[in-house]
């Protein structure tokens, strides 16, 4: 049936135009579902990125034993960097710690004459994963030369909970929206198929195989899905860029950092294309099944 593929494609395109309203409805449904799904996924993605940033700020402080010399304190860095779960490790000398402290209260002369000796050398450690905080604390406390460790596990547990909830909700929402999209697309194509049930019956009667009847519908679904994906991608781009501008111009939402669309357009395009084609072809195949039983 190789020679028939041009015919199938021609039929698929022809059917799409000859049932203009239904094609428009099917594309509309795909666009709406992809937009809702895309917007939700992008919001979840940005939320996750913002949580990662916040996570970075939630550092562990390891105070060096006073008995160690400056060189000995600095030498600890290589040991600490090798600990599992450490993303980066920065040495902060007692002088830097003093300056930073004073800076916080720069309007108050009271702290201006503070001696650096009352501060300790310390290390600021960021983790690859907040869940490792408890484990890291134990390991740091076991390092010779580290006197005390400060790690706020309550805050980190809060971040982990928020991140997990956001992850579960976004996965659940994406799954639900995908199923809904296939269902609506399938029903929309079922209506166009219903319109052509006589045509299908005639084809069956002259000896057409199920494959021969199915292919034009598959092409049609593919095209409808593709059109839906392209339109949804364009709209998503405009919508998201507008959202990024809106957030950056807002006084109250400046804390939120949104990833620019230019940085994520490729995965968004691939997902839209994949989902659009899946919904189109899946919807067509589901819709036509019933009418092939002649």
């Amino acid at each position: 049936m190789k020679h028939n593929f041009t015919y199938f494609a021609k039929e698929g395109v022809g059917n799409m135009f000859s049932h203009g309203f239904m094609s428009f409805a099917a594309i509309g449904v795909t666009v709406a579902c992809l937009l809702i799904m895309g917007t939700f996924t992008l919001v979840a993605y940005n939320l996750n990125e913002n949580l990662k940033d916040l996570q970075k700020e939630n550092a562990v402080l390891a105070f060096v034993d006073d008995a160690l010399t400056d060189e000995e304190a600095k030498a600890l860095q290589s040991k600490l960097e090798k600990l599992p779960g450490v993303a980066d490790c920065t040495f902060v000398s007692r002088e830097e710690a003093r300056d930073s402290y004073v800076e916080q209260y720069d309007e108050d002369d009271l702290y201006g004459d503070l001696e650096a000796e009352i501060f300790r050398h310390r290390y600021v450690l960021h983790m690859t994963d907040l869940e490792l905080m408890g484990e890291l604390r134990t390991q740091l406390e076991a390092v010779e030369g580290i006197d005390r460790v400060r790690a706020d596990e309550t805050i980190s547990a809060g971040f982990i909970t928020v991140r997990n909830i956001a992850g579960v909700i976004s996965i659940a929402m994406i799954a639900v929206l995908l199923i809904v999209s296939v269902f609506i697309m399938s029903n929309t194509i079922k209506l166009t198929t219903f319109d052509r049930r006589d045509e299908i019956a005639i084809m069956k009667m002259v000896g057409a195989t199920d494959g021969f009847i199915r292919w034009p519908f598959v092409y049609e679904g593919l095209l409808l899905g593709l059109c839906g994906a392209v339109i949804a991608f364009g709209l998503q781009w405009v919508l998201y860029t507008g959202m990024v501008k809106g957030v950056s111009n807002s006084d109250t939402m400046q804390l939120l950092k949104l990833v620019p669309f230019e940085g994520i357009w490729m995965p968004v395009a691939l997902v839209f294309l994949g989902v659009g084609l899946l919904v189109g072809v899946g919807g067509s195949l589901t819709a036509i099944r019933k009418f092939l039983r002649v």
Partner: protein
Amino acid sequence: MIRLTNVEKTYDNGTHALKGISFEIADGEFVFLVGPSGSGKSTIIKLLTGEVLPSCGRVMINGFSMGRISDKQIPLMRRTLGVIFQDFRLINTKTVYDNLSLAMRAVGATTKEIQARIPYVLELVGLEGKEKRYPDELSGGEQQRVAIARALVNNPDTIVADEPTGNLDPNRSLEIMSLLERINALGTTVVVVTHEKSLVNRFEKRVIMIDEGNVVTDGAHSYEVREVQE
């Protein structure tokens, strides 16, 4: 060849449509299948086209045993048949040429084969020059000729016509029946289901009369049919 041996058909709703029917139609024959409404004629047509399978008994159509036929073989069996319906069943959004080419595409014909075959078949049914017309633009008789052309286009062994003249006036009916007779003369088996006694009488072919799911008479010609029906 078509052979039905002790065929029974009971539908899911309990209707016992055929009650042990047997007959044989040899290659090249022209047969009228007659009988009142609800006699089982439509069930026989459905058995012949593979729309329903027998509940019991044996149905052989052009070498295919319908009792044991697989889903994949049904399209192959249908390609040995050309089916004509009372309501023509043409695709109104396609031209005459496209209606015919669809039937050829469905069985895997190439564009070259299609281009060679369609003008010949259209000439055979007297529709030369009407390739580009849509079914709506044709008269009832012409539409039925298109349906006959579609049935013929794949060169089937058997033509099964279900009330082919039911929607036509007497003159057009005669033309269609004459056309089927001509097709039969070229070697194709023709089975015509009809209510029209006058046509049956006029053509003097073998008549199988069905009533209440049984064969009432077989082999009679026009006069006997009229006698039985009256």
